C-alpha cells in the first residue's frame, strides 16, 4: 500500500502542495487529476522520491520511502511527464542501461527488451538513436523502461502523451492487466475520459490542495453530474472557460 501522509511542499515561500493525503492500494488504479500548476507533478516527484516533502511523508507498506530509497525504487516503475532520455543511445541501449542499473539478469533482460520493443512497435527502430525518435516513440521507450523489471508500484505521469491510438488502447489494457495482477498503480492525467474508464478512485487537486478523493461513481453521485469532466470542472476549474476562450481570441485579433 502506497500512502501519502499530509504531504506539503513549499518552493521557497511559495506553497506548491498543502496537506495532501491519500492511499493507493494493490489492485487499484488511483487517478490523480488537477489543472496545470495544481501540484500534480510535485506530488508525483515526491511519491517517486525525486523530491523530499517540506512536511509529511510517503509510506510504502507502512515504512517511509525516504528511509531506504534504493529499496523502494527497486519496486517502482515510473513514467515521467517529460520525455527525458539519453538521446545519444538507441532504444535497446537505453533499456539495457535501465535494466543494468536495476541489476536485472542479462539474458532475462535481453529477452524482455526484445519482446517489449516488438510489442511496442519499436523493433524496426532498434538501431536509431533516441534523438531521431518522435514524441510517441520516446513515450513507448519510457513505458518499456518502467515495466522492464515487473514493478510492484507503477506511477504514470501523463502516460498517454504522444501515443498513437493503437498504442494508447494497448497501454490501457496493460494498466488494467497490471491492476488485475495486484500491482499498485497511480496515474496522473489530463485525459479525463481515460481516467474515468480506468481508475477506480480519483484524487482531484486544485491550488495545491486535495479537493476530492473518492470512487469515481461516488463522486458523480455526490455532485449529481453525469460525467467526471463536469465534476472536475465544478471542483477544480474556478474560471469561466467559455469567457476565457472568447477573451483569448479577442487578444489575438487585437
Amino acid at each position, binding site marked *: 500500500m502506497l500512502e501519502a501522509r499530509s504531504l506539503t511542499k513549499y518552493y521557497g515561500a511559495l506553497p506548491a502542495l498543502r496537506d495532501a493525503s491519500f492511499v493507493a492500494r494493490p489492485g487499484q488504479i488511483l487517478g490523480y487529476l488537477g489543472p496545470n500548476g495544481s501540484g500534480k507533478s510535485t506530488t508525483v516527484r515526491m511519491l517517486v522520491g525525486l523530491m523530499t516533502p517540506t512536511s509529511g511523508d510517503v509510506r510504502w507498506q507502512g515504512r517511509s520511502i525516504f528511509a531506504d530509497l534504493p529499496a523502494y525504487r527497486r519496486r517502482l516503475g515510473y513514467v515521467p511527464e517529460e520525455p527525458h532520455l539519453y538521446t*545519444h543511445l*538507441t532504444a535497446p*541501449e537505453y533499456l539495457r542501461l535501465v535494466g543494468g542499473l536495476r541489476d536485472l539478469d542479462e539474458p532475462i533482460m535481453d529477452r524482455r527488451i526484445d519482446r517489449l520493443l516488438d510489442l511496442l512497435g519499436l523493433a524496426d527502430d532498434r538501431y536509431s538513436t533516441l534523438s531521431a525518435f518522435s514524441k510517441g516513440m520516446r513515450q513507448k521507450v519510457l513505458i518499456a523502461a518502467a515495466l522492464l523489471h515487473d514493478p510492484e508500484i507503477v506511477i504514470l505521469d501523463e502516460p498517454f502523451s504522444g501515443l498513437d491510438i493503437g498504442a494508447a488502447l494497448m497501454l490501457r489494457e496493460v494498466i488494467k492487466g497490471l491492476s488485475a495482477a495486484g500491482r499498485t498503480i497511480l496515474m496522473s492525467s489530463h485525459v479525463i475520459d481515460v481516467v474515468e474508464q480506468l481508475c477506480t478512485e480519483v484524487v482531484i487537486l486544485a491550488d495545491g490542495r486535495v479537493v476530492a478523493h473518492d470512487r469515481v461513481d461516488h463522486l458523480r453521485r455526490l455532485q449529481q453530474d453525469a460525467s467526471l469532466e463536469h465534476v472536475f470542472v465544478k471542483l477544480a476549474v474556478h474560471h469561466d472557460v467559455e469567457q476565457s476562450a472568447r477573451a483569448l481570441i479577442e487578444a489575438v485579433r487585437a
Partner: protein
Amino acid sequence: MTWRRTRLLSRVCFGRLFENDLFSSSVSASSGLTWILAALATPGVMFSGSQMFFYAHVRTFAPEKQDRILFISQAFHVDFAMAVAAVITMLVWTSLTPDRRDALVLGPLPVQVWEQALGRLVALAQFTAMFAAAVSVPTAIVFTFLTVGPADVGHVPARIAGHVAATMLGAGFVFFALMAAQLLLAATLGARAVRLATLPLQGMALLAMVAALSFTTRLADVLVAPETAQHGWAQWNPAAWFIGVYRWVAGDPREVFATLAVRAGLACGAVLLVVMVACPLAYRRCLQLAIAGEGRRGGWWSGAGMRLWQASLRMWLRTPLERGLATFITATLTRNHAHRFLIGSYAGIAVLCALPIAARLLGPADTAAARYAWFSVPLGLMCWGAASLRVAMMLPVEPAANWVFKLTEPVDKQRVLSTAVTVIQSASVFPLSALFGTGAAVVGGVELGVMVAGVVLATGLALVQLLTLTLRTVPCTCSYRPGQLRLRVLWPVYLLVWLLVAYRLPYVALWALGDARRSLLLIASLCLVAAGLRLWRGYRARRLAAFVYDEVDTSTATTMGLSFGSS
C-alpha cells in the same frame, strides 16, 4: 554489482560529455570526436615538423644552444597541452555537473548518489585521458625523434615517457583543477552559482592560457639556468612543475627538476582529492536543485543591458523581422557558453597580437610609432572581433528548434543577412571606432581622433561585408559538423586581410594623416570598397532561393561502442 553500475553510468556519462553546445544532436559523437582528436594532435606535430631543420641546425652548428632551444620547445608543448585542457574543460563546462535530465532519468532508479558521482568521475577521467593522449602521444614521438642526435638514441624512450607524462599530467591537472573549482562552487553555493561563475572562470582560464603561452620562453630561460631555476615565481608556476616532470622523467639529473616534479605530483593529488570529496556533495545538491527547478537566470542588470543594446540596434533595424532576429542572435551569442568562449578566445588572441605595440598608446602621440599604434591596435582588435562574431554565428545552437525558422522563412533573404551584418558591426566596428577615436582625440588631438575613427569605421564596414559574403542562412541555426564549416576554406584570405589591415593599412593612414585630401581619398576608397562588397553580397542574397540548414540524417546509430550489456 556496484562495478557493473559504475561501468554503465560511466559509459552513459561519457556519451553525455559530447552533448554540449559544440556537438549538435545531428553530429554523431564518433565523427565529431575524430575531427577534434585530429585537430588536437596536429598543432604539436606541425610545430615540431616546422622546426625540424632548425633543430638539426642547432644540433650541428650550435650545440651549446641546444639545451635552451629544447627547453623552450618542451615548455611550449607542456603549456599547449595545459591550454588545450582548459579549452576542452570550458567547452564541456555544462556537462560536468548533473542536470535535470540526469535527475529525471537516474533519479527514479535504485542507484545511490555516490554511485552516480563515481560513474561521472570515471567518465571524466577517461575523457581527459583521451584528449590529453591525442595532444601528447603523437607529438611526443615526432618531437623526440626530431630532436635526438645519433649520440642520444638511447634516451629516446625516456624522453618520450617524459613528454607523455608531463603533457598528460599537465592537462589532467588543469582539467581537474577547473573541475574542482566548479564542484566546490556547486557543493557550497549551488548550480546557479556555477552558472554565474562561468563567465569569470572562462575569462580567467583564457587569461591564464594567454599568459602561459606568452611567457613560455621566459619561463624556459629561467629554468634552464641553474642560478635562476630556484626563483620563487618559477617554483610556484604550474607549467614549471610539469616541465620539471618532463626533465626528471627524461633523465635530467638536476635536483630542481625533481623538486618541481614532486610539486606537480602533489598538485595533481590535491586537485584529485578535492574533486573526489566535492563530487558527491555537488552531485547531490545539483540533483536536488535540478528537480526543484532553480531556473531563474540573470538579474535586472542583464535585462537592462539587453534593453539598452536593443534600443541602440533600433537605429539601424527598421522591421520587426530584423529586430526579432537581432534579439535572437544577440541572446545566443551572449548566453551560450560555447559562443561566449569562442568570442572570448578570439578576444584573447586579439589582445595577445596587440600587446607588443599597445604600450605605445599610453605615451604621447606625437611620434610616428605612437600614431601607428593608434591605427594598428583598433584595426587588429576589430578584425579578430568581427571574425569571432562571424564564426560564432556558424556554431550550432539547437538544431531541433530550426523548424521555427523553416516555418517562417522570410522571403527577403537580403534583410536577414543584413541584420547579421548590422549585429556584427554594432558589436565590433562601431564601439571600437568610437572608443579609439575618442582616445586618439584626447591623446593626440581632434585630427588624429577623427582619422582613427574614420579609418576604423570605414575599414570595419568593408571587412564585415567581406566576412559575410558566404553567409547562406539565418545565423546560429546551422548544425554544421566541425569540418563542414564553410569559413575554413577562406581562412587564408582572412589571415591575409588581417595582416594587411592591422599592419599595412596603418602606414597608409599615417601617410594620409595631416592632409585633408589624402584623408578623404583614403576613407572614401574604403567606403567604396564597403559599398561594392555590400552590392555583391546583396546580389548573391537575391539569387538565394532558400536558406541552408544543413541537416544530417541521423537514422543510423554511431555510438562509439557504447553498447550496453552482452551485445
